[in-house]
C-alpha cells in the first residue's frame, strides 16, 4: 500500500518534471505565446486560420526565416551582422539585372549568382573580423554602408521593374510543388540543412563552443579564426540566397530594398531565445521567432490596428521576449547554484 503511494508519487513527480522540462524550453514558451495570440484572433475572424491565409503567412515569413537563420549563426558566435539589408539589396539587384539583361538564363543560375555574391560579401566581413580583428558590429556597420553604396553603383541609381523581368523568374516563388510554394520549400530546405549542421556536425558544435567561451574552446583545439570566418560566410550565403528570392517575390529590385531588415532578423533571433552573449540558441527557436513575427504582422489588420502600429507592437513583443528570456535564465542559473551548494 505504502509502496504504491510512493510509486504513484514518484510517477507524478516524473510527469511534473517532464512537463517542467518541456515548459522550460524556449520553443515551448514561444508556442504558448503564439497560441495566446492566435486564439482571440481566430475567434474574432475565423478565416485567419484558413488554408490560404496560412499559406500567405508562411510565404511572408520564408525569406525572414532564411535571413534570421543566417543572423543566428553570427549571434551564436557572439557577433552581430548589420549588413543583412545591404547584402540582400546588392544580390537582389544583381539578380534582377541579370534577369533583365539575359532573360534566357535559367532561374537556378540566378539563385546561384545570389548565393555566390552573398558568399563573397560574407567572406569579406569574415576576413575583417577573423584576421583584421575588427569587432563584428563595427565591421558590418562599415560594410553595411559600403555594400549599399555598391548597390547604387551597380544599378546606376535605376531600378528593375516587374515587366523587365521574365515571368519564369518572378513566378518562381509562387510555383507550387505538393501544394506548397517554391518559396516555402526553399525555406524548409535551408531549415533542414542548417538544423543538421548546427546540431550534428563538428563545425556546427564548434560555433557553439566559440560563442560560449572562446578561450576554453581554443584550449581544446577549436580554430577560432576559421569559425569566425565561417559564420560570416554562412550568413552571407543565406542573405545572398534571400536577396535573389526577394527580387522574384516582390517582382522589383530597388536600391533601398530591405533597408532596416537587420532589425527584423535580429528580432526573430531574440524572440527565438538566442542569447546575445553567444553560445545558446537553436534553429527551431529562430524559425518560431520568424513565424511569430509573420503572424503578428498578419494579425494586426484583423484586430483593427492599422499597419502603423506594426513597429510599436513588434518592439513591445521583442522587449517582452527579452525580459522573459532573462528572467527564466536567471532562475535556471540560481537553481543550478543552489543545487551545487546543496551537494
Amino acid at each position, binding site marked *: 500500500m505504502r509502496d504504491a503511494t510512493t510509486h504513484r508519487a514518484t510517477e507524478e513527480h516524473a510527469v511534473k518534471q517532464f512537463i517542467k522540462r518541456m515548459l522550460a524550453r524556449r520553443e515551448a514558451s514561444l508556442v504558448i505565446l503564439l497560441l495566446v495570440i492566435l486564439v482571440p484572433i481566430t475567434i474574432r475572424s475565423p478565416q485567419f486560420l484558413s488554408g490560404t491565409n496560412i499559406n500567405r503567412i508562411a510565404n511572408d515569413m520564408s525569406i525572414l526565416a532564411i535571413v534570421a537563420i543566417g543572423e543566428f549563426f553570427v549571434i551564436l558566435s557572439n557577433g*552581430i551582422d*548589420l549588413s543583412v539589408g545591404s547584402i540582400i539589396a546588392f544580390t537582389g539587384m544583381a539578380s534582377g539585372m541579370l534577369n533583365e539583361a539575359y532573360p534566357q538564363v535559367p532561374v537556378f543560375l540566378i539563385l546561384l549568382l545570389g548565393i555566390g555574391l552573398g558568399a563573397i560579401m560574407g567572406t569579406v566581413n569574415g576576413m*575583417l573580423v577573423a584576421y*583584421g*580583428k*575588427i*569587432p563584428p*558590429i*563595427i*565591421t558590418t*556597420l*562599415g*560594410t*553595411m*554602408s*559600403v555594400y*549599399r*553604396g*555598391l548597390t*547604387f*553603383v551597380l544599378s546606376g*541609381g535605376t531600378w528593375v521593374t516587374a515587366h523587365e523581368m521574365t515571368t519564369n523568374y518572378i513566378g518562381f516563388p509562387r510555383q507550387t510543388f505538393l501544394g506548397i510554394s517554391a518559396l516555402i520549400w526553399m525555406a524548409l530546405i535551408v531549415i533542414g540543412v542548417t538544423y543538421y549542421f548546427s546540431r550534428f556536425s563538428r563545425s556546427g558544435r564548434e560555433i557553439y563552443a566559440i560563442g560560449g567561451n572562446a578561450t576554453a574552446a581554443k584550449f581544446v583545439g577549436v580554430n577560432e579564426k576559421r569559425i569566425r570566418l565561417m559564420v560570416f560566410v554562412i550568413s552571407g550565403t543565406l542573405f545572398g540566397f534571400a536577396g535573389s528570392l526577394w527580387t522574384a517575390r516582390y517582382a522589383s529590385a530597388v536600391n533601398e530594398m530591405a533597408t*532596416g531588415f537587420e*532589425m527584423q532578423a*535580429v*528580432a526573430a533571433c*531574440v524572440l527565438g531565445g538566442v542569447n*546575445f*552573449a553567444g553560445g545558446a540558441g537553436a534553429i527551431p527557436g529562430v524559425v518560431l521567432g520568424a513565424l511569430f513575427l509573420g503572424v503578428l504582422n498578419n494579425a494586426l489588420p484583423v484586430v483593427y490596428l*492599422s499597419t*502603423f*502600429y*506594426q*513597429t*510599436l*507592437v*513588434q*518592439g*513591445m513583443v*521583442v*522587449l517582452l521576449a*527579452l*525580459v522573459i528570456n*532573462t*528572467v527564466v535564465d*536567471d532562475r535556471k542559473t540560481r537553481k543550478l547554484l543552489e543545487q551545487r551548494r546543496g551537494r
Partner: protein
Amino acid sequence: MSDKQDLVAKTRLLDESGWRNRLIELFTKWEVLLGIIFILMVIYFSNLTPYFLDSFNLMNASFQFSERAIMALPMIFIIMCGDIDISIASIIALCAYAVGTASAAGVGTPGLLVIGLAVGAAAGLVNGLLITGFNMPAIAVTLATQSIYRGIAQAALEERALTSYPQGFGFFGQEFIPGTYIPFMLVLYLALAVIMGFVLHKTAYGRRLYAIGSSPEAARFTGIKVKQIRVMNYTLMGLFAGIAGILLTSRILSARSNIALNWDLEVITLVVLGGVSINGGKGTIYGVVVASFLVGYLKFGMGLLRFSGTIMTIVIGTLLIIAVLLPRLLDTYKNNRKLKKQQLEAALNSAKA
C-alpha cells in the same frame, strides 16, 4: 667593436626626450592622424573648388552635422563603458512628435524646450533601467526600444507631419549668433563638447567611465557604482537626443515619424572613427570632435564637387573600417618598439656588467 658602436647608436631609441622618439610618439596617436587627414582633406577640397574655403559656406555647412555631432558626445560615455545605444534616432522621432503635438496645442517655446528635453531624458532613463535592472544586453534592449519609441510616433502620426510652431522656435535650428554668421547650433555643440570633455577628462566621473570600460568587475570591486553610472549615461544620452530632436524640429519646422532615420548608426560611426574603442575603456573627446568635423566637411566638400551620396556612403563605410584597423597596426608597431627597447636595455645592462 662594431657591435658596441651599433649598441650606442641604438641607445637613441631609449632617449625619451629625443625629438625623433617624441615625433613617433605623437604621430602614432589616432587623434593626431585624424587631424592630419582633416587638414589634407581641406587642402584637397580648397584646391578643387573655390567655394570650400569660404567662411560663410563653412559655417553654413555645420547646420547639416551639428545635431549628430551633439549626440556623439554622450555616446562616447556609453561606448566607453562597453555599452551601446541604437535607439537614439527613435528618441529624436519621439521628441519631435511630443514637441510638435504640444506646439499644436498652443504651448509656447520655453514649454516646448522643457517637453523635448524631458521626453528625451525619460526615454534614455527607461533604456538604462531596462538594461541594468534586468541585466540584459544593451544592443538587444535598445533594438526593442528603437521600435517602440519610433512606433509610438508612427502610430500617432501615421503619415501626417506636424508643422505649426510658435514664432521664434526656429531660432535654435536656423539662426546665427546675432551680429555674426556663426550658427547657434555650432556654438551649442562646441560648448557641450567642452563641458562633456571636462567631465570625461577632468572629473572622477570620467575616470570611473574608463575604469568601467577596462573591467566592469574590477571597477565594481573598487566601489564604483557601475549600475548607477550606466543609467546616468543612458539618461544623458536621452537628454542629448532630446536636444538634437529640438534642433532638428526647429531646423526643418516639421515633425514626421520617419525623421532622423538611421542616425544612430551614423552617430556610432562618428564615435568609433574618433578612436573610441567599441570594447570600452579607450578614447578621447578630441578624437570624436575632429571626426565629427571630418565627416561633416567631407560630405560638404563632396557635395560641392557633385559626388553622389552613394560615393559618400562608401567612403564613410571604408573610413570606419580603416579607423579600427589602423590603430591596431599602430599598436603592433608601438609594441614592437617597446620590445626592442627592453631588449636593448637588457643588452646594455649585461654589457655594463
